[in-house]
């Protein structure tokens, strides 16, 4: 029961993501409803599961994919993932409602909710994954969803740049994480989270611990915007505010923190962990807070503040003690409550005043009292003023820093932390004071007005939580934090005592210094800001852009060297390398000649062999004369089909003959528009080199096939021969293999053929619009046209032959299951029948009498074949299981009816459609190039008097 609920909860957002895009047609409220429904249902599912986890249980569900390789989609709900899932879904509800009122009428709301739900599903996937590799996949999906959401207003340059930057940084981190997880899995012998969590000691002692740690930290730090990867987060603020609230403050940026917490029992506790993680966290906390104070854009201020608080969390996890980890858990909740509130407040201010620039704001308290109250509560909580919840965790954090020995000193870390707290007080008060208090301005970009409850409702709830969690932490937060912290550290955590007043402690003194210092700094803001601007103005974005440009130049240079567009060079390298590898393998072992006796050579075969070899030689020598070379290639193709006839392969012979005909016609049509000669371009040395490469490869392939043919072997075909009649209902084993035993292959192949046909048509259409089309319309053929292009003899014979050819095609098709033939061959034969008609009477004349679209034939063919395959499902059998029976229609013989025949019909239609579409495309080129259209079937009308007819 709970297992299914867990699976449901994990997949609901993905399923739900499909609906808003459609529901938007029914209006914005319906769309919001459809976006809200999956989140609410998932939240309800979570609520049902909470009691189990509350009792210390872990709910696990598993969908096997490749059990033999240990690959499965495992989900796992423990206290840590429960808290994050609750945050993701709860904030999802709040943000969805907020976005309904935030987005304007022109914004594509359906698309927005689809992206948002996609993100929500991926984020849930991260926290619920029981397998590290699966988690990495969801991790990357969140990066993609974040890219789409940051770039949501794609007409804005900042949005596009911000989206690219975020994707580059977090995507790169994701790759590092994937590598780190694989190393970790190698050490632990499993990617299963439960197994990895058990092997902490073993992993920390392993030689590969440090590389794994560094790679995983790279993933976590990029995602959670830790210095020096923090710069993408402020640029991500180009996203709509609901996105900033949800992804870039409440959930996604905490994924890195989540990862650190999740792997805390495995990776934490070493010197390397403390040195890297705690230092990074501390530096990030200070840098973020300092920059935040000097940002004038409300969202930029909040973005740097988020960076700072993510550093706060990283620092706590990096300290590596259980007590610090507990504080980290509590602060995840605390930060969510005040920061999401402030983001939404920033959105409201932007909405109602038309600006987010602090310098143009002030005195809004009287105009927007509700928003001002909410902002004040959340802002003071962010500043860490009692009795709000921000105070609680800040005190606990400062307390933890006093226990840490950093840079060889007990003073260093508390000092830096206090400085960061000072900046934090200053920017928080600036956010509240400079926006809502002070004298109202004479004018704002828009006339400010209080927002509706749809906008302030969500923030109000969160602001209330700030107060309640601050006043009653023991009652409201302690039970949850105890359980989550136990899941983080991997051991039970004793009863927590959360309270505001601890007596006069070092932390209280540090806090006091921070608050006073912050107030002083803000009072002298103008001077402090001027000093800051003098001090440093490094723009991370410029560095990033330069780095990206440099990487682009380097890769362009490398690919220009390796990938210069010369086909002959690629082929030469490929062939030489293949022959070398094969030769090395061959010469490295001992060989004995084969023992299978060779067949005798009858005289006719020897003659044909000689002719075709002469032809091949002539092709190589005369290939510059393209017409001759083409005809000689056709002769070789016919010799190959004779070989098939002689060597017991009638189906292949039939296929080869008909394909040869069609191919040659097509090539002739194409040659019409190509140069008729190939100029001499390569030097003699070059030709010698090519010759050596070619002869070496030919010798190797020939020798290989001789080695094959002179040895006996055990074929798997015995099964096919034995079951062809009884299981597939046909005596032509080749055809039964195609339509039955390996029907799925054939299905794929006709799809490929159909795609080839459609691509040819698409290429033609693209060409006709462009330069090639202009060139064709001005085409002057060099050859003199035949005076009698549609000769009467040929037209008459072709028209007489047409019904006969069609009948042969149908016959070949019908008998194909038992005798040589089948859909492939029948399709080709009927195509040839049509081709003859086209050749005799011209394309236009024939086309006017041919009312079936060739595209449609391809589609119908694939459709029929697929439908036949699916029919088997209704009988509870796998795709493409065939059935057959015999019927005895009146007048003709007993007749077999197999479902495979319907499949073969699909093959037939696709082949016919693809061949004819290719021909149609080339003929269209001819018509564009001024080929005249004939109205009559032949040039000479035999019914007319000679003196009237032949004037031209």
């Amino acid at each position, binding site marked *: 029961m709970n297992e299914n609920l867990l699976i449901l909860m994990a997949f609901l957002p993905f399923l739900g993501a499909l609906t808003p895009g459609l529901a938007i047609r029914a209006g914005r409220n319906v769309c919001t409803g459809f976006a809200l429904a999956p989140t609410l249902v998932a939240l309800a599912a979570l609520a049902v599961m909470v009691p189990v986890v509350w009792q210390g249980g872990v709910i696990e569900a598993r969908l096997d994919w490749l059990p033999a390789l240990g690959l499965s989609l495992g989900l796992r709900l423990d206290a840590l993932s429960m808290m994050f899932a609750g945050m993701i879904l709860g904030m999802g509800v709040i943000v969805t409602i907020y976005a309904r009122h935030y987005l304007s009428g022109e914004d594509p709301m359906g698309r927005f909710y689809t992206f948002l739900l996609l993100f929500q599903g991926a984020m849930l996937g991260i926290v619920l994954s029981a397998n590290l590799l699966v988690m990495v996949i969801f991790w990357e999906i969140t990066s993609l969803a974040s890219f789409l959401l940051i770039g949501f207003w794609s007409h804005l340059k900042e949005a596009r740049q911000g989206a690219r930057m975020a994707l580059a940084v977090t995507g790169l981190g994701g790759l590092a994480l994937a590598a780190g997880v694989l190393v970790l899995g190698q050490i632990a012998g499993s990617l299963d989270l439960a197994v990895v969590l058990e092997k902490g000691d073993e992993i920390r002692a392993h030689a590969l611990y440090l590389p794994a740690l560094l790679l995983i930290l790279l993933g976590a730090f990029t995602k959670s915007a830790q210095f020096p990867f923090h710069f993408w987060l402020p640029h991500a603020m180009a996203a709509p505010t609901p996105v900033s609230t949800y992804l870039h403050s409440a959930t996604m940026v905490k994924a890195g923190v989540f990862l650190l917490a999740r792997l805390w029992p495995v990776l934490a506790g070493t010197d390397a962990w403390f040195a890297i993680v705690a230092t990074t966290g501390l530096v990030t906390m200070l840098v973020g807070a300092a920059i935040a104070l000097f940002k004038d854009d409300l969202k930029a201020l909040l973005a740097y503040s988020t960076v700072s608080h993510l550093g706060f969390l990283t620092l706590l996890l990096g300290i590596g003690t259980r007590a610090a980890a507990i504080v980290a858990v509590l602060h995840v909740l605390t930060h969510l409550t005040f920061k999401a509130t402030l983001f939404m407040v920033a959105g409201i201010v932007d909405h109602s005043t038309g600006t987010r620039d602090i310098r143009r704001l002030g005195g809004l308290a009287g105009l927007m009292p509700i928003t001002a109250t909410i902002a004040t509560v959340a802002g003071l909580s962010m500043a860490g003023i009692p009795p709000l919840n921000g105070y609680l965790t800040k005190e606990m954090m400062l307390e933890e820093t006093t226990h840490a020995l950093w840079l060889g000193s007990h003073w260093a870390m508390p000092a830096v932390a206090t400085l960061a707290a000072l900046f934090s007080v200053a920017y928080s008060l600036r956010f509240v004071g400079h926006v809502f208090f002070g004298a109202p301005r004479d004018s704002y970009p828009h006339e400010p007005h209080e927002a509706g409850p749809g906008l302030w409702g969500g923030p109000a709830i969160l602001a209330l939580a700030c107060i309640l969690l601050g006043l009653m932490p023991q009652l409201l937060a302690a039970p949850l934090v105890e359980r989550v912290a136990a899941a983080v550290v991997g051991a039970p955590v004793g009863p927590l005592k959360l309270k505001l007043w601890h007596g006069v402690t070092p932390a209280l003194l540090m806090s006091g210094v921070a608050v006073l210092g912050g107030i002083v700094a803000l009072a002298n803001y103008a001077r402090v800001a001027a000093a800051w601007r003098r001090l440093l103005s490094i723009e991370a974005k410029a560095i990033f852009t330069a780095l990206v440009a440099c990487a682009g130049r380097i890769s362009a240079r490398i690919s220009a060297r390796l990938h210069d567009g010369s*086909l002959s060079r690629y082929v030469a390298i490929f062939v030489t390398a293949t022959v070398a590898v094969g030769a090395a393998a061959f010469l490295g072992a001992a060989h004995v000649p084969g023992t299978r006796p060779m067949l005798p050579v009858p005289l006719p075969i020897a003659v044909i062999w000689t002719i075709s070899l002469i032809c091949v030689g002539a*092709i190589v020598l005369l290939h510059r004369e393209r017409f001759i070379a083409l005809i000689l290639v056709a002769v070789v193709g016919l010799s190959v089909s004779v070989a098939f006839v002689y060597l017991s392969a009638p189906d292949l012979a039939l296929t080869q003959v008909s394909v040869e005909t069609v191919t040659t016609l097509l090539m002739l049509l194409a040659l019409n528009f190509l140069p008729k000669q190939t100029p001499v371009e390569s030097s003699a040395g070059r030709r010698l080199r090519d010759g050596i490469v*070619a002869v070496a490869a030919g010798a190797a392939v020939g020798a290989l096939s001789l080695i094959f043919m002179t040895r006996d072997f055990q074929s798997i075909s015995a099964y096919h021969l034995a079951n062809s009649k009884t299981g597939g209902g046909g005596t032509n084993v080749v055809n039964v293999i195609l339509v039955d035993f390996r029907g799925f292959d054939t299905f794929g192949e006709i799809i490929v053929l159909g795609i080839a046909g459609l691509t040819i048509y698409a290429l033609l259409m693209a060409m006709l619009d462009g330069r090639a089309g202009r060139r064709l319309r001005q085409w002057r053929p060099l050859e003199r046209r035949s005076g009698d292009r549609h000769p009467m003899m040929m037209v008459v014979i072709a028209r007489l032959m047409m019904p006969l050819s069609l009948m042969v095609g149908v016959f070949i098709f019908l008998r194909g299951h038992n005798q040589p033939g089948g859909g492939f061959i029948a399709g080709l034969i009927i195509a040839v029948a049509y081709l003859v008609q086209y050749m005799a009477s011209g394309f236009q004349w024939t086309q006017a009498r041919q009312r079936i679209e060739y595209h449609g034939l391809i589609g119908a063919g694939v459709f029929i074949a697929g439908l036949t395959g699916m029919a088997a499902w209704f009988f509870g059998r796998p795709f493409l299981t065939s059935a057959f029976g015999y019927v005895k229609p009146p007048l003709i013989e007993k007749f077999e009816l197999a479902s495979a025949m319907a499949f073969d019909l699909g093959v037939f239609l696709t082949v016919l459609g693809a061949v004819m579409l290719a021909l149609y495309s080339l003929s269209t080129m001819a018509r564009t190039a001024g080929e005249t259209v004939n109205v009559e079937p032949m040039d000479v009308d035999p019914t007319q008097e000679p003196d009237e007819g032949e004037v031209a």
Partner: protein
Amino acid sequence: MELLIATGIGVLTAAGIYLTLRLRSFPVVLGLALLSYAVNLFLFSTGRLVTGAPPILSKDAAAYTDPLPQALVLTAIVISFGMSALLVMLALGSYLEGRDDGVEGDGAEDAPEATSGEAR
């Protein structure tokens, strides 16, 4: 017989690769056609050579040749038609869009132009 087929495959492969190494698209298309004959024969030959024993079940047949390579080759022949047609179309497109029918990327832009069949 085996020797003839093996030499045939070898010669076809060598000629096909030689033509594929040329600098213009039409020889390349012809070369690939020869190469596909070679490959089809090669695949076919993995079922070993047998005469007079087609894989059509009947009461009087004593033995059958291996049908599986035949089935594979049959679709390969049809697919290679599709690929040839596509290649020809690409060759046409690149010739009509560009200056000549070279296959050497940008480097061949300076190569002497073909003289016949040229659009003016």
